[in-house]
């Protein structure tokens, strides 16, 4: 008889019922998913990024499909923190799953202030810091500067007892250095990765396709890149990793777990397969049972890479 595997996941202070999460910006405020998702099957819901003030977002077109991928420049269109707390949190906290708020600020003070507000609300399991959005200009790009990234985490931790996840941008030369810095700063986990910067060109019109010119690439096209980021960080930094990038089926989930992710987030796939995240946990459960694995943690980071291939201090391509 197949054993019943333990699907619980511990991301330091954050314990989740299973490792299948849904990614910020790809699940709305959960309400929109009611018809499609079984929330109790999802390890955690991460609503769209919230900023201190309302943001109108970028001019359309905001998305364009590329080969097996999606380029987006939504620009953090949201109604601001007060509205999030008033309009969305009351609904979110009733969901039969953990809710992790995802926040972004222009400077460290804004991150701190938002963390204080959220700390005093009820119903959140943790906070994910979006220090990685490629679509907003004007702010400091925390995610590309290890010291600043660590500073944000440290100051946020000073304002809240909630577990803190730092979501990193892959648009850096050395993501390991940033992961190391935020681990030192006190992050409970890192989410790897946000989108890869790209553009789409309409050569006939001699114009960029996106209203914002540049955007962030997501979807199956980026899966090998995201896997690589997870693997590099897993090899060198002692911090739980939430893998995200192009996951669209159970094999993808297992690849991320084996490469070193303790949990994963489903992003772009929600747009065309809104029931996917709810199904995956059952599929994972069945698969681990067949493998005879006691706990999902037993397969995390089990990649047998040749020592020569493991990244040294410098990143290789």
């Amino acid at each position: 008889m197949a054993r019943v595997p333990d699907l619980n996941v511990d991301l330091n202070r954050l314990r989740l019922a299973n490792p299948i999460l849904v990614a910020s910006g790809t699940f709305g405020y959960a309400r929109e998913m009611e018809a499609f998702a079984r929330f109790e099957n999802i390890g955690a819901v991460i609503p769209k990024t919230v900023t201190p003030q309302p943001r109108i977002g970028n001019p359309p077109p905001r998305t364009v499909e590329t080969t097996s991928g999606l380029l987006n420049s939504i620009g953090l269109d949201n109604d601001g923190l007060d509205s999030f707390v008033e309009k969305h949190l009351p609904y979110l906290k009733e969901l039969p799953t953990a809710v992790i708020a995802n926040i972004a600020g222009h400077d460290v003070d804004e991150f701190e202030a938002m963390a204080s507000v959220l700390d005093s609300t009820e119903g959140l399991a943790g906070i994910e810091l979006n220090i990685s959005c490629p679509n907003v200009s004007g702010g400091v790009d925390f995610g590309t500067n290890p010291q600043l990234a660590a500073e944000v985490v440290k100051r946020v931790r000073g304002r809240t007892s909630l577990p803190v996840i730092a979501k990193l941008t892959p648009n850096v030369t050395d993501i390991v250095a940033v992961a190391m810095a935020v681990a030192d700063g006190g992050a409970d986990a890192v989410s790897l990765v946000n989108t890869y910067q790209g553009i789409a060109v309409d050569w006939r019109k001699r114009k960029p396709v996106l209203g914002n010119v540049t955007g962030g690439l997501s979807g199956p096209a980026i899966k090998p890149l995201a896997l690589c980021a997870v693997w590099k960080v897993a090899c060198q930094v002692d911090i739980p990793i939430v893998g995200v990038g192009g996951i669209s089926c159970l094999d993808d989930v297992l690849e991320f777990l084996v490469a070193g992710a303790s949990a994963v987030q489903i992003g772009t796939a929600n747009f065309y397969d809104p029931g996917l995240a709810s199904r995956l946990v059952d599929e994972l459960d069945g698969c681990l049972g067949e493998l005879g694995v006691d706990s999902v943690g037993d397969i995390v980071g089990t990649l047998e890479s040749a020592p020569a291939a493991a990244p040294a201090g410098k990143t290789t391509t």
Partner: protein
Amino acid sequence: MDAAAQSPLPGLVPAASQQTACVIEQVRMARDTYRLRLECPELARQIVPGQFFMVREQGGSDPLLGRPFALYDIVNNDDGDPIGVDFGYVVVGKLTSRMVDWQPGDTVDIWGPLGNGFPAPPDGHLVMVAGGIGQTPFLAVTREALGQRQYGDPPRDTPTRPGTLTLCYGARSEEYLAGIDDFTTDGLQVRVSTDDGSHGHHGLVTDLLKDLFRESPEPTAIYTCGPEPMMEAVAEIAAEHNTPCWASLETPMACGFGICFSCVTRIRLDDGQWDYRRTCVEGPVFRAEQLQW
């Protein structure tokens, strides 16, 4: 629709679901234009005119996302029970050029019903102004307005005494005119314009609308769907005559049900400002005066 527009969190899709649907038939309607019939009873039972659904090829990742298509009409079996939907499409890009090869028996993913749809047909003289493939939502509108069919679950009320109904339909040329036979029905007057004069009025579809305002009975409500410049011109004419006008937008969409925030359009606010709103859940049908073109 109006209830949804007033809700503080408008545009949820409690009735929608994702299903596998079987292709029943594919018919050529006009140049580069086809009609696909999919078997999906649940969707067919719920959808109302002006709503849409997303269609996607199964399995692969290129094309990756679903594509939005408006309901052309529902398909009923001999007992009158809804079993499927028809939609018309023009070949313009990646998915639509592959759809041409879909055969009866092939299965595809479909999710809906999505969006708000047109309001139930008003009394009086309803004029529908269509440009190109923008004609597709109007077959179901026509059949509902004429009391030939009911849509929705529970079924929406249809007028007991149908008013006057006119379709103004503009196309590039005669070979692009699609579904004229479908629209040939008692109670609907069809007026056609083509850019090259190969059929009907030689000129703009808005010329046809202007003519209608010189005749009797005058239009009392206008529904429009097609290229945005055309709809903007229609909205202007409607405003000049103080005639209520609803426009159905064809904003590109990535999800169709409100989670990606890619399908935004500019909506006028009471204070004179505007804000982006999601077309897929707050539209695709808007009162024309709400739109900041």
